[in-house]
């Protein structure tokens, strides 16, 4: 429909009508889906927990927002998010954008960095949750840690073992026979807590060797049979532990070592008389690397931040890259001709020219980060979700996720809205100026 020239009355009315027809559906949809819910939420935040409105409670929902420990934690966490993520995402995006201009496989690199944007945040959360698992058999990050740790020190063959009787004790990781002994004794070094599959291969029925004069003999064995058995006594059905290094130390500090045989026995012959201390070395019991608790209460928020930056770095790179591509080359060349170093060019020319793009990315990230929800709910295990809590998640949990307190939930939503508004206003002003 072609609009009639302005001036004549009927034609003017027709123009209004046309405008109204075109705008009508949008207004209705905005009204139903945006304006009404927003107004209702604001009103609802002054009423009690249930019902369409419930009972008038004044500002007490807002008081609860700032006095409930879980909600305060959510606000604190959001502050951390806002302080860390936008700056890091912008910085990393800038670095990637500048670097990809100079590498030959730029497209492949850009695609790889941008790919996380194509995955839903929920799926990302599930994936990272598996990567972060503490058990190195499950979590890839801790598996890497274990590989690195095992290069430094291999875990002991009997890392789960414990002394079976109080005559032995654990000291600095080693199992030590408490009482000193003289040659002519046969000692029992019983260990428990060893799963059958961890018993070294080739193990045979344990034997308590006979005492011989001038020698210290003994046995290291799995002091357990079904039902428990008699602690400290070698019994039928209990296996010796071969390949264990036993040490005896004399009064002067001189240490002798022996290795146990298939039946767990060991022997130190021709010992001068004196007192000795027997022990099984710490390396036998050294624990394997058990992984960091990435999903634990202390590290959960940093873990979330890393995953979130992984998602959004590609976005920042692409947007900043577009800005970079549109930048006038002659300015850069002029700077270089004038003798500026690469760093000076970057610092004094590229960054200032890119400033508008950078600020768009930065502001967008602030808004995104304030609203963060899906990553937290999918990545953080339920036991640490209270530690990882953010405002949007707190809002959903309070209103729908069990607590069913629509009053407080609405108050949180309004608070979040109030936080976003100034940033949004800044953004809108920027659009107007740019037009």
């Amino acid at each position, binding site marked *: 429909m072609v609009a009639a020239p302005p001036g004549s009355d009927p034609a003017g009315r027709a123009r209004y009508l046309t405008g109204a027809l075109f705008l009508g559906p949008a207004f209705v949809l905005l009204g139903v*889906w*945006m304006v009404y819910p927003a107004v209702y939420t604001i009103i609802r935040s002054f009423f*009690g*927990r*249930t019902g369409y409105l419930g009972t008038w409670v004044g500002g007490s929902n807002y008081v609860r927002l700032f006095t409930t420990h*879980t909600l305060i934690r959510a606000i604190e966490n959001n502050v951390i998010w806002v302080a860390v993520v936008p700056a890091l995402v912008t910085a990393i995006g800038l670095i990637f954008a500048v670097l990809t201009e100079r590498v030959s496989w730029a497209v492949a690199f850009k695609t790889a960095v941008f790919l996380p944007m194509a995955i839903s945040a929920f799926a990302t959360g599930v994936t990272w949750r598996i990567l972060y*698992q*503490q*058990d190195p058999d499950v979590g890839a990050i801790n598996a890497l840690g274990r590989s690195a740790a095992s290069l430094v020190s291999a875990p002991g063959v009997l890392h*789960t073992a*414990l002394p*079976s009787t109080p005559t032995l004790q654990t000291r600095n990781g080693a199992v030590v026979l408490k009482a000193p002994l003289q040659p002519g004794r046969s000692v029992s070094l019983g260990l*428990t*807590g*060893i*799963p*059958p*599959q*961890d018993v070294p291969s080739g193990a045979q029925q344990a034997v308590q060797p006979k005492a011989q004069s001038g020698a210290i003999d003994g046995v290291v064995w799995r002091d*357990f*049979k*079904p*039902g*428990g058995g008699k602690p400290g006594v070698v019994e039928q059905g209990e296996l010796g532990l071969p390949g264990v290094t036993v040490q005896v130390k004399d009064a002067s500090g001189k240490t002798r070592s022996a290795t146990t045989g298939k039946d767990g026995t060991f022997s130190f012959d021709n010992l001068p008389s004196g007192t000795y201390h027997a022990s099984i070395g710490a390396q036998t019991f050294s624990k394997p690397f058990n992984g960091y*608790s990435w*999903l*634990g*209460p202390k590290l959960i928020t940093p873990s979330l931040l890393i995953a979130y930056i992984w998602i959004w770095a590609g976005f920042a790179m692409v*947007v900043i890259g*577009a*800005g970079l591509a*549109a*930048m*006038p080359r002659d300015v850069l060349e002029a700077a270089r001709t004038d003798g500026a170093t690469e760093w000076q060019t970057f610092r004094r020319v590229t960054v200032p*020219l890119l400033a*508008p*793009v950078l600020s*768009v990315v930065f502001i*967008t990230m602030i*808004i*995104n980060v304030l609203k963060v929800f899906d990553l937290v709910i999918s990545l953080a*295990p*339920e*036991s*640490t*979700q*209270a530690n990882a*809590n953010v405002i949007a998640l707190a809002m959903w*949990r309070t209103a729908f*996720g*069990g*607590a*069913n*307190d629509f009053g407080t939930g609405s108050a949180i939503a309004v608070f979040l809205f109030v936080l976003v508004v100034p940033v949004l206003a800044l*953004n809108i002003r*920027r*659009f107007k100026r*740019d*037009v």
Partner: protein
Amino acid sequence: MKNRVVRGVALAMLVLPLALLAAGCGGSSSSSGTTATTGGSSGSNSDVKGSVTFDGIWTGAEAQSFAKVIAAFNEQYPNVKIKYKPVGNNVPTVLATAIAGGHPPDMADIAQPGLVKQLAQQGKLKPITYAKSAIAANFAPVWQQLGTVDGTLYALVFKAANKSLLWYNVPAFQQAGVTAPKTWDNLLADAKTLKQSGTPAYSIGGADGWTLTDLFENIYLRTYGQAKYEQLSDHTIKWTDPSVKNALTMMGKILGDTGNLVGGTNGAIQNGFNDSVTNAFSDPPKGAIVFEGDFVAGVILSSTKAKPKTGFNAAPFPAVKPGPNANAVEIGGDLFVTFRDTPAIEAFVKFLATADAAKAWAKLGGFGTGNKNVPASIYPDAITRATEAPIGKATSVVFDMSDEQPSAFGSTTGQGEWGIFQDFLRNPSNVNGIAQKLETAAAAAYKSGK
């Protein structure tokens, strides 16, 4: 040029995805008065005619099992047509909508005792006092109490799931030479032996707070009995009560035995319920015991290679004290309620209270009942017999406490009871502090209502 780039980027930013929450409300239709076609058999029962609409949770295989119950009913009452509608888990929403619209179904199956209470107090339900004698003949007295609100019988607990169970890894128990613990002291002794054998005893799924509250509830129920359990559930006794502290101290003997938890305290807090099951029934076992309800069997069968009896088995939760509380059972129940009163509905409700009704489903599996006239031999396999037979034998039965408490306290992730019990798992010696936290959270939740 620069500006155009910025503006294009900026406009793209403006079109941020807007999440719209659309509350899905299922409609409910209820037809009544449709006369059923006359059946073949004769007798006084065939005088009862009409149809009964029934909204239930069960879908798929469970709906087919319930159809067998209806078929058994129709053998006796050929002229009553039961129209079962599988609604799924959102029965409360569907019912709320139907009631608001003035067309509730004739009958419904509700899993939330709190909702039954609420509907009864609002006068939406019809009493089923006519079924009292049928229930008394088939059930222990406690089952009438479970369906009674303010002195009137409104609901029949047709199906019950046992939540007072202990699941154990059979090879791990054999290696350690222990048997399923019958008492609390047995449990602690077995756990010690299991640890010496090299298998940590307890596989705890503490990332799911409800596994911890279920463990607490079982200890509390078996120590202090049904009456006290219900007082705690109603918050008529406080969470700082000495009984609570004592139960927490007992629970601390398990959670505080950190060398005996799969993965230590960190593992226990990060593993969810499913992880706790797969850890305990993997080969070689990482753990030996899981405390949870009859639904554990399904997880074991679907996500491990363990076989019933040779790989895994179930036993009643250990008796904490000798006496009447020793075999008390915590259940998740399906409560059948009526919204109308017709001869057809009466006949159906009375039939459901009989052993014939329960047997029709029990022999298919996936079903437990408090009906004492259902013999244990009817259950199709040994595991089901082990999990469901104790329900019929118990004289003391309670619902899951979390189903009866305000959800802000009893069933919200990271908050209330679930979150506080996770704190307890992190520091099991802090009994007084935890009791105080629980009381503070409970008081706030009960004050602001359900």
